[in-house]
C-alpha cells in the first residue's frame, strides 16, 4: 500500500474519531445555555441538578475532543507537508484565528464552568457557560471556513512553480466568505444542535423508563423534544440550500451524490439503491424528475452528469452515493421519531408510551452517524482533489515519510482510539447511572465514594 492511501486512511480515522466529540460539545454547549438559563430564571432545583449533570457529561466530551483535536493540528504537517506549504498562506490565517479567538475562549472558561461552582456567583458561572458555548461555535466556524475554502477556493492566486508553488491571499473576505462557507457552516452547526437535542431526549427517556430522577428527566425530555424538532426542520431548509450550492459550485460531486452518470432531462432521484460503477448506472427505486425539481425548481432542466467531466476527476461514486443516502435516511428516521415524540408527548409525560421511550433512548447515536456520513459525503465527494480544481490529493503528501512510518502511527492510533472509546463509553455510562445530583449529594458522593 502506498503512502498516500495510508495517509488518507490515517487522516480519515483521526478526523472521524475526533468528530464524535465536537458535535456533542457544540450541541450540548447550547443545551447547557438553555438549561442553566432556565435554572437562573426559575431557580428550580431540578434545573440546577440537570445543569451540573450535563456539565459533567460535557467535561467528558470536552476532554476527549481536546485530546483527539491535538492530532489534527499536527497531522497536516506530518502527512501532508506539500499541502501545508501550498495552503499555508491561506489556511494558516484561518487556523490562527481559530486558536486565538475560539479555542482559547473555550478552553479558558471551561475551567470556570467545571470547577467554579463554589468560587464564582451563579450569573458569572452562567456567563462562563455561554462563553464556552460561543467558543465551541467559533471553533466550528473557522474550521468549516478552512474546509470550505478547500471545497470552493476563492480570494487567492497561485505563485511559484512545481514544489515551490503555493496559494497566496488576494482578498481575505473572499476567503472567509467563499461560495460555500456560509451554507456549509449552517449545515454543520445545525447538525451539531440535533446531536445536542437527541442527547437530552435520549437521557431523559432513559430515566423516564427507569422511573428515576423523574423531575429532571421530564424537563430534559421536553427540551430535547422541542430542540430536535425545530433543528430537524431547519436542517431540511439548510440541506436544500447546501445541496443546490454543491450543484452550482462542485457539479462533479453533485452528480456523484445521486450517481448521475448520463446527462438527461427529468433527472431522477434514487430513494434507495446501489451504484453499479462498472456499467455506470444506479440500480434502485427512482423518483423521476425529482432531482431536477429540487435543484432547479424545474422538472425539465437536466442535472449535468459525470459524462460532462473527465473521468480522472470523478470521485468514488459508490462511496459518495451511499454516504449521502445514509445521511438522508438517518434524517428521515430522526424526523419520524421526532414527530412521534410530539404526538405521544402528553402520554409520555403521564407515564405511557414506553415503547417510544425505548426508541428515543437508543436514538442518541443517530445524529452522530448522520454528521459523520455527511462529512464523508463532503470529503470523499471532493476527491481526487485536496483543494478543488487546484491541488490533487496525491500531490499534497509529505515527501519524507515512508509507508512503514505511517503503518506504525496508524497502528498506534487504532490502539489508542479503541482504548479511548472503551473508556469513554464506560465513563459515560457511569455518569448516566449516577445521574443528576444536587449540591449536597455531589458533596456526599465525594466524601463517601461509591
Amino acid at each position, binding site marked *: 500500500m502506498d503512502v498516500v492511501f495510508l495517509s488518507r486512511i490515517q487522516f480519515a480515522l483521526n478526523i472521524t474519531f475526533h468528530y464524535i466529540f465536537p458535535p456533542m460539545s457544540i450541541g450540548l454547549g447550547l443545551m447547557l445555555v438553555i438549561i442553566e438559563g432556565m435554572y437562573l430564571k426559575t431557580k428550580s432545583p431540578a434545573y440546577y441538578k440537570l445543569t451540573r449533570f450535563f456539565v459533567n457529561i460535557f467535561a467528558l466530551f470536552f476532554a476527549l475532543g481536546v485530546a483527539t483535536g491535538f492530532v489534527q*493540528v499536527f497531522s*497536516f504537517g506530518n502527512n501532508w507537508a506539500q499541502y501545508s506549504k501550498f495552503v*499555508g*498562506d491561506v489556511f494558516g490565517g484561518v487556523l490562527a484565528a481559530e*486558536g486565538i479567538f475560539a479555542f482559547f475562549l473555550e*478552553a479558558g472558561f471551561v475551567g470556570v464552568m467545571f*470547577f467554579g461552582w*463554589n468560587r464564582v456567583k451563579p450569573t458569572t458561572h452562567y456567563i462562563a457557560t455561554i462563553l464556552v458555548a460561543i467558543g465551541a461555535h467559533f471553533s466550528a466556524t473557522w474550521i468549516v471556513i478552512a474546509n470550505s475554502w478547500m471545497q470552493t477556493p476563492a480570494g487567492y492566486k497561485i505563485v511559484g512553480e512545481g514544489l515551490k508553488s503555493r496559494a497566496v491571499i488576494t482578498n481575505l473576505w473572499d476567503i472567509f466568505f467563499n461560495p460555500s462557507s456560509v451554507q456549509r457552516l449552517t449545515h454543520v452547526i445545525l447538525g451539531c444542535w440535533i446531536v445536542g437535542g437527541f442527547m437530552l431526549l435520549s437521557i431523559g427517556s432513559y430515566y423516564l423508563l427507569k422511573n428515576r430522577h423523574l423531575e429532571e428527566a421530564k424537563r430534559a425530555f421536553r427540551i430535547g423534544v422541542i430542540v430536535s424538532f425545530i433543528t430537524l426542520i431547519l436542517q431540511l431548509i439548510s440541506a436544500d440550500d447546501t445541496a443546490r450550492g454543491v450543484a452550482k459550485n462542485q457539479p462533479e460531486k453533485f452528480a456523484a451524490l445521486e450517481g448521475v452518470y448520463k446527462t438527461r432531462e427529468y433527472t431522477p432521484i434514487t430513494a434507495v439503491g446501489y451504484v453499479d460503477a462498472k456499467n455506470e448506472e444506479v440500480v434502485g427505486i427512482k423518483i423521476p424528475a425529482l432531482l431536477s425539481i429540487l435543484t432547479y425548481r424545474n422538472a425539465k432542466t437536466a442535472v449535468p452528469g459525470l459524462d460532462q467531466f473527465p473521468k480522472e476527476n470523478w470521485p468514488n461514486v459508490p462511496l459518495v452515493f451511499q454516504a449521502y443516502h445514509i445521511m438522508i435516511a438517518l434524517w428521515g428516521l430522526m424526523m419520524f421519531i421526532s414527530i412521534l415524540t410530539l404526538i405521544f408527548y402528553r402520554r409520555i409525560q403521564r407515564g405511557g408510551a414506553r415503547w417510544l421511550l425505548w426508541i428515543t433512548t437508543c436514538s442518541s447515536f443517530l445524529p452522530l452517524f448522520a454528521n459523520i456520513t455527511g462529512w464523508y459525503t463532503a470529503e470523499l465527494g471532493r476527491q481526487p482533489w485536496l483543494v478543488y480544481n487546484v491541488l490533487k490529493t496525491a500531490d499534497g503528501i509529505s515527501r519524507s515519510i515512508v509507508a512503514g512510518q505511517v503503518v506504525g502511527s496508524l497502528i498506534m492510533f487504532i490502539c489508542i482510539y479503541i482504548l479511548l472509546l472503551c473508556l469513554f463509553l464506560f465513563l459515560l455510562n*457511569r455518569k448516566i447511572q449516577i445521574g443528576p445530583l444536587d449540591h449536597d449529594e455531589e*458533596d456526599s458522593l465525594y466524601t463517601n465514594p461509591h
Partner: protein
Amino acid sequence: MAFEVLQVLAYLVLCVSVVFYCILDGFDLGVGALHLFSKRDEDRRIFLNAIGPLWDGNEVWLVIIGGALFAAFPVAYAVIFSSFYTPIMILLAGVIFRAVAIEFRSKVHSASWRSAWDILFSVASIIIIFCVGVLIANLIEGIQIDETGLFTGTFWGFFGYYPILVGIMSISLFMMHGLVFLLMKTEGDLHDRIRTWMPAVMTFLAVFYVIVSLVTFFKAPHMVERFADYPILFIMPAIAILAIVNTPWQVHKQNDGWAFISSSIAIIFLFILFGIGTFPIMVRSSINPELFSITLYNASSAIKTLGVVLTIVAIGIPIVLAYGWYIYHIFRGKVRLDSASY
C-alpha cells in the same frame, strides 16, 4: 511595513508563544513529572487539582505554536512536522494519554484504577518534556535536510547523545518549575514535604545544566559564535544562571511566588539563548547549514498573510491575556478539594 520587519515580528510572536507554552504548560508538565513522588491519594488529588482548571488553557499554547507556524512559516511547519514524524507521533500519544489520565483518574474510586492512571499521567508528562527537549536539541544541532527541504535522515538519528542530554535537562528544569508551582498551591504538611524535594531536584538540574552547556560548545559551536561577536550578549546566560540559582534561594526564604517568577525567568532566558544562537535559522540543515537551512526569511508566508496573522494576534492576544489572568485570579490561592474537584 517592510517585509523583513513583518517576518521578524511574526518570528517574535512564535518565540513568545513557545516561551508562554514552556512557562505555563511547563509547570503542569513538571507537576506530572513529580506526581509519583507523593504516595498518598489525597496528595495526588491536590497535585491534579492544582493544575486542574489551568492545564487545558496551557496546552492551547501548543496548538497556537502549531497554528502560528502553519500560518506564518508554512515551509518550516511542513519541514518540521514531516521530518520529525515519528517523534511527534510519540509526543502526540503522550499528550492524548496525559489528558485522558487527568480526566479519568478521579472517576472511579479504586486504588488500582487510580495508580494505573497516576503512572500513565506521570510517564506521559515526562515523555512530552523529553520529546520537546529532543526536538529543540535537533533544531540546534541541525537535521539532514537537502536543498528542497526534504529530510533524508533516520528516526534513530534524532537520538544522539546531545538530544538525550537536552531532553533530560528539560525534565529537571520543568521539575523545578512544577515543584515551585506546587509550593504556591499547597499548605501544611504536604507543603513542607514538597519543600524537602528541592535540593534533589536542584542537584539534578545543576548537573545536567553544566553538562549540556559544555557539550553545546563541542556539538553546536555555531550556537556560541554570536556571543563571541557581541560579548555584551553574555549578560543573557548570566541572567539565566542567576535566575536558576535564585529559585532555591527564594524557596529557602519561603517566598514561593518570587521563586516561581525566578524559575519562569530562567526558562525565558534559556529560550533567549536558543534564539540568539539560532536566529534567523528555524530548521538547520546539517548537510549544508549555509545554503539548505530553513530560515525565517525563506519559510515565511507572503506579506499579506503575515499582515493578517499579526493583526489577529494584535487583537486577540490582549483579550486572551486579560481573561487568562481573570481565570488564574479565580483559581488563585491554595488548593482545597470540594465537590467539583478531580
